[in-house]
């Protein structure tokens, strides 16, 4: 019997807001799905679109990008720059067939531990329903196959 599908989700978060929000969720002892691997970065402005591609390359089924609300950025406008980049990158991924539902974006402040926990639960459920990202996983498998000469 095969194991039930557990989605792998990678979250790229900024340290000043969303990471602190995740911390608050922890210290408040809120339970949330264990499917997410959090990667902490100094600012949403540092979250390069390459990170999204890298996470997919390593087999992620879903991705979350999250940072400070507009106006709250520790570096004043890193998140405004990031937002433009996401808009463009998102359109590009969608055009090449990488489903929009697999890559989510959010603003979560240091005070929003509850929002963080809820969001992780919801995203995990959504991705669970979508199932593994088979189309992409097949491309990964192809690179791992033994060379036959």
């Amino acid at each position, binding site marked *: 019997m095969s194991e039930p599908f557990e989605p792998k989700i990678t979250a790229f978060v900024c340290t000043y807001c969303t990471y602190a929000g995740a911390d608050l969720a922890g210290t408040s002892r809120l339970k949330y799905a264990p499917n997410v691997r959090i990667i902490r970065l100094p600012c949403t402005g540092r979250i390069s*679109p390459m990170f999204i591609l890298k996470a997919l390359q390593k087999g992620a089924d879903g991705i979350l990008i999250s940072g400070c609300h507009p106006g709250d950025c520790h570096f004043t406008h890193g998140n405004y720059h990031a937002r433009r980049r996401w808009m463009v990158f998102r359109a590009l991924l969608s*055009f090449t067939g990488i489903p*929009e539902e697999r890559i989510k974006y959010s603003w979560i402040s240091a005070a929003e531990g509850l929002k963080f926990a809820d969001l992780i639960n919801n995203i995990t459920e959504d991705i669970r329903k979508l199932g593994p990202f088979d189309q992409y996983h097949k491309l990964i498998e192809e690179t791992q196959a033994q060379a036959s000469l």
Partner: protein
Amino acid sequence: MSIEQQYRTRAKELLSAGEVKMVIGYGAGTTAERRRPLFITSPDETERLVLDSACIANLSGYLVTEGLLSDEKRVAVFLRPEGIRALNVLAAEAQLDPLQVVIIGFDLPKGELKALQGSSVDDFTALLGALKESTPDVDGRELLEKIEKMSPEERFAFWQEEFSKCIKCYACRQACPMCYCRRCIVDSNQPQWVNTSSHTLGNFEWNIVRAFHLSGRCVECGNCDRACPVNIPLRLINRKMAQEVLDSFNHFAGTSKTQEPVLASFKKDDSETFIL
């Protein structure tokens, strides 16, 4: 006098008067329908210049050849409106000083050669502004619309099929005037962002990265599309992204030499309907 002859004379005058040190134009190619770039430094050679409906390549990329403009002398170059836009993008990104470039402008509406008046980027502001308002007549529009209507799975399958043909020759990168980075992200191996094997995965990643780096900068000159040896329809991705930045940010690349790069600027009220 034909436009070709007029422009040869103009190139000759510019060189003889010492106004420019070089003219970058087109010369005869290996077959009757092909043209190749020609770099002319002496007035006697200007008779070799060719100008006709086969002169489609965007020559602006040669301007950022290392050291070419570093002596502050001027260079003249044959450019179509897309080439002038590319020149503006390069100027806005501080890659060159547009005052060092003398434009010999022409256009090919419906394959008919037409001369363009003006010699410096600012002389073409009205023309480029009008271009922004026009609907470009792109080859493959129907296919683009078809792809937009597909489901994500179908789109993925479509591009998987196309990208599986890519041989990572990077001809598309070499041909693009905007791909001037000394070290391209795909050549970086610490960390290695893009899978370098010839499998579809790395090809997919490479093509996404290429398109992203050109979003809001691409002028749709078609150099990349024509350079691709396996005929991947790169024009479709370029078009899609140009449309995206136009719709989202009212940005049309290369309308002026001081235009803010779209992904290096922002507005506080940029749309964010997709952010939870």
